[in-house]
């Protein structure tokens, strides 16, 4: 019986050889793939072993980690609740992280290359210090005002966005998307509850998870007239140049007449450009657009930042950041080639296929206020080490582009100031400051209420721009743009108060 016993020994050798080969396959060849798998909870547990850094606004932590006795040592919490949700994002255990939490994850978690010196120090001292801290550019007061005013808007709009920028630097002062959501349940260590909360938000028809201020576009309505006016000013038109207007205008080859918002607005056949801006004269701008041609308008819109697909809002020096949707002027060509006059006329008053993000609106106002120079928008002011003393990265503002020359910017600024002084944007006025702006009312569809828009800026006594804003109230109906102007003014006033 010894021969078969020996063969059994060989069989056992082969079986163990298979085990050994298979373990090599898993633990050597596939190790990295398995180690970094999304299903691998170890990465998360390790991540929660170290205290994650704060995200702070004006000296207050709006995202912080508290020690727990659970398996995951630290619980992420957001004391501001829904107010900062679209900026901060959230850091869930099992879902994808978003917002600044995602953008600055390495630094907050303490795993960034920048923090290597800290980690080496900790190894020797035995301390378990946390991750780095991220300081945001937001103004606490402006953000709170924007959130409250937007959610308590007097026209009953359920969706919308508000965004405020420092025109001189591009630093964001406020960013709100309505409706918002509370990120706290999403960061729950009970992953089942977190997924449930996330699913509920995803299924909400008002899409609270969407960042309307940066990532969604709507027809801008009359706010787009600033772009058309800029194109006109660069092509021989002055503020006092008379342009054709009238109660109604039907573009050639199209039977749909363009009318003004009210019969009292520019019924006379000719108005000055300044009057057309102040009263938001649709017939005037439709004909002005036809005179300029589609190319000039498209080119000017592009100069202001339309059609840019890769803009992000994060740190100034960095390329990464929260993605910004591209604003578009859309197609204005006739099917047989050449320009479609009807499309061009409607596009000139911000309808048809023109689409704009609230950020783009704020950038237009900021550029006008800043003498024609558009600064790159950013959210991260400073990266502060775990010890709170070492500054790793401080924002260095940089110009993004120069859409218009100084004199043209000055003319636009002058006209926009007049809109708030005498025209449709009166509600945006702030006492002691020079406020300029432009309202917009955009048709949302055949049977749905209009969107209300306001873009604007505030200058201090010396004429220095201190804040630029864009407020959008989706399907706000009549009075929407006036309410947007009022909210815009309040946000800028709050930003000014904090800045002082």
């Amino acid at each position: 019986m010894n021969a078969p016993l020996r063969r059994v020994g060989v069989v056992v050798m082969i079986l163990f050889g298979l085990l050994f080969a298979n373990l090599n396959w898993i633990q050597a060849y596939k190790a990295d793939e398995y180690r970094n798998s999304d299903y691998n909870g170890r990465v998360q547990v390790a991540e929660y072993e170290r205290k994650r850094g704060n995200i702070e606004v004006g000296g207050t932590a709006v995202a912080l980690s508290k020690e727990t006795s659970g398996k995951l040592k630290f619980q992420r919490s957001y004391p501001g609740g829904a107010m900062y949700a679209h900026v901060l994002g959230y850091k869930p255990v099992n879902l994808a992280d978003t917002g600044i939490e995602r953008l600055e994850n390495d630094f907050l978690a303490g795993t960034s290359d920048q923090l290597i010196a800290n980690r080496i120090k900790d190894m020797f001292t035995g301390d378990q210090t946390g991750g780095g801290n991220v300081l945001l550019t937001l103004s606490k007061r402006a953000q709170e005002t924007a959130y409250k005013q937007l959610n308590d808007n007097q026209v009953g709009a359920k969706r919308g966005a508000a965004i405020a920028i420092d025109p001189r630097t591009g630093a964001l002062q406020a960013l709100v998307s309505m409706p918002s959501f509370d990120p706290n349940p999403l960061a729950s260590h009970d992953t089942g509850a977190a997924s449930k909360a996330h699913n509920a938000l995803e299924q909400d028809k008002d899409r609270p998870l969407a960042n309307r201020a940066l990532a969604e576009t709507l027809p801008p309505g009359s706010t787009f007239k600033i772009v058309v006016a800029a194109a006109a000013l660069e092509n021989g038109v002055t503020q006092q140049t008379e342009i054709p207007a009238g109660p109604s205008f039907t573009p050639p080859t199209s039977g749909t007449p363009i009318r003004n918002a009210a019969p009292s607005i520019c019924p006379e056949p000719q108005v000055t450009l300044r009057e057309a801006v102040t009263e938001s004269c649709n017939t005037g701008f439709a004909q002005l657009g036809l005179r300029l041609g589609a190319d000039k308008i498209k080119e000017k819109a592009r100069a202001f930042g339309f059609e840019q697909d890769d803009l992000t809002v994060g740190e100034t020096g960095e390329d990464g950041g929260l993605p910004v949707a591209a604003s578009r002027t859309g197609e204005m060509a006739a099917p047989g080639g050449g320009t479609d006059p009807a499309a061009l006329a409607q596009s000139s008053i911000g309808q048809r296929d023109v689409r704009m993000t609230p950020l783009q609106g704020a950038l237009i106002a900021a550029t006008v206020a800043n003498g024609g120079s558009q600064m790159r928008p950013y959210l991260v002011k400073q990266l502060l080490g775990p010890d709170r003393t070492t500054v790793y990265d401080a924002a260095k503002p940089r110009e993004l582009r120069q859409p218009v020359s100084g004199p043209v910017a000055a003319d636009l600024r002058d006209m926009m100031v007049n809109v708030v002084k005498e025209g449709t944007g009166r509600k945006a006025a702030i006492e002691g400051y020079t406020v300029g702006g432009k309202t917009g009312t955009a048709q949302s569809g055949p049977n749905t209420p209009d969107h209300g828009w306001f873009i604007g800026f505030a200058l201090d006594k010396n004429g220095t721009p201190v804040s630029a804003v864009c407020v959008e109230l989706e399907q706000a109906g009549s009075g929407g743009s006036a309410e947007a102007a009022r909210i815009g003014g309040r946000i800028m006033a709050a930003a000014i108060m904090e800045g002082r």
Partner: protein
Amino acid sequence: MRLARSRRNAELSLLLLAMVLVAAYAATVEANVLDTVTPDFWIPAAALGLVFLGLHLVIRWLAPFADPALLPAVALLNGIGVGFLRRYDLANAAPEQRESLAIFAGTGGRQLAWTLGAVILAAALLAIMRDHRSLSRYAYTLGLAGIVLVMIPAVLPGRFSEVNGAKLWIRLGGFQIQPGEFAKLALLTFFAYYLVRKREVLSLASRRVLGIDFPRGRDLGPVLVVWLISILVLVFEKDLGTSLLYFGMFVVTLYIATERVSWLLIGLILFFGGAYLAYVLGSTVGGPFANFYDRAQIWLDPFAEPYDRGYQLVQGLLTLGTGGLFGAGPGGGQPTLLPEVQTDFIFAGIGEEIGLFGLSALLVVYLLIVERGLRAALAVRDSFGKLLAGGLAFTLGLQVFVIVGGISKLIPLTGQTTPFLSAGGSSLMANWLLIAVLLRVSDGARRPVTGGGGPAARPSGGPPEQLHGAPTEVIRP
């Protein structure tokens, strides 16, 4: 004649080395989990060392020529198992209670206590069974007992037999045992006895069909019946791993007894045919085969339902992968993230912390035990002993293959304990009994034919039945 040496001192040194390794493992665990090594880290290793030292002394006295590598190898595995289970308890304890966790608390503490019991049982078996041939007297009793043990959980109401959906237990109050673990030993003894008795009939009196010699039904009958009953019961108990184990055990003992390769071929064809049939039936008919079909599906693509049916296997693979070549170090892993890490998946849990190199070492230790068992079978002079030791050693190796192959996605996963590592008293006791039998056979194998050799040389109770020389049945065509 070769000079027979007992090599007991080698056994002692190896045993001490194993215990030093176990203590070092415990210290590393504490350093990683508690950030400090408590003054009593060595207590479990010392307790185990005392128990094993006791068995060593019993071996010195009762089986002085036993293989010296078996005890230290098993002791190392058992010690690592206890150490890992204690490490698992530490991970489960609240942070502030970790440093004061009692030595005999939790799964690790229970395993330590079970080890004590199992080793005493093994020593008792060595004391009672002075010659392995005496086992053959009880072969039919053991065969019957094996069937009964396998069947008990199946006939008991679920409330006495079910744990996590598997009906494998006898539960009385807080006490529970898994009778199948012991049935393995009983059935193998019966197989060995019966096949030796019928050996010549089986290999000579046969009908040739399709070029393969088949023995007559009346010769193979009893063993086939016993085996079939076990397999059927296990299939309906949904204990696929154990039925696979019994199947392999039976085929291999048959092969060793008859020396006919055709049995292996028939076994393999039956096995793969059966597996394929069960898979097809599982997907169409369902019923008792649905479970097998399910497991095969999970095996083919565990990542198809990573949070549902495939969860455990996926987590097992991720655990092993995270360990990589060197592992996270004892205490450096996350064993609590892996369901059933204390039983079925202990090999993966350990693998996260000791890595590929550590697991390879453990596999080599297992291989050493199996090959030492086979070597005892080769060297022993009686057929019953050869078949018994060979069958037991192969069964142990097959069990390691089934469970480790299962958790590493080499073969479909079937619930099996990892011998000497998994938490659980039944498995520990049954496997220590198996080792006691191997020790006894190896003692018989290495003992010099003439001359003294301690009090075990002349077992009391008269000479045992000499199976090797016993006449076999007369062949009537």
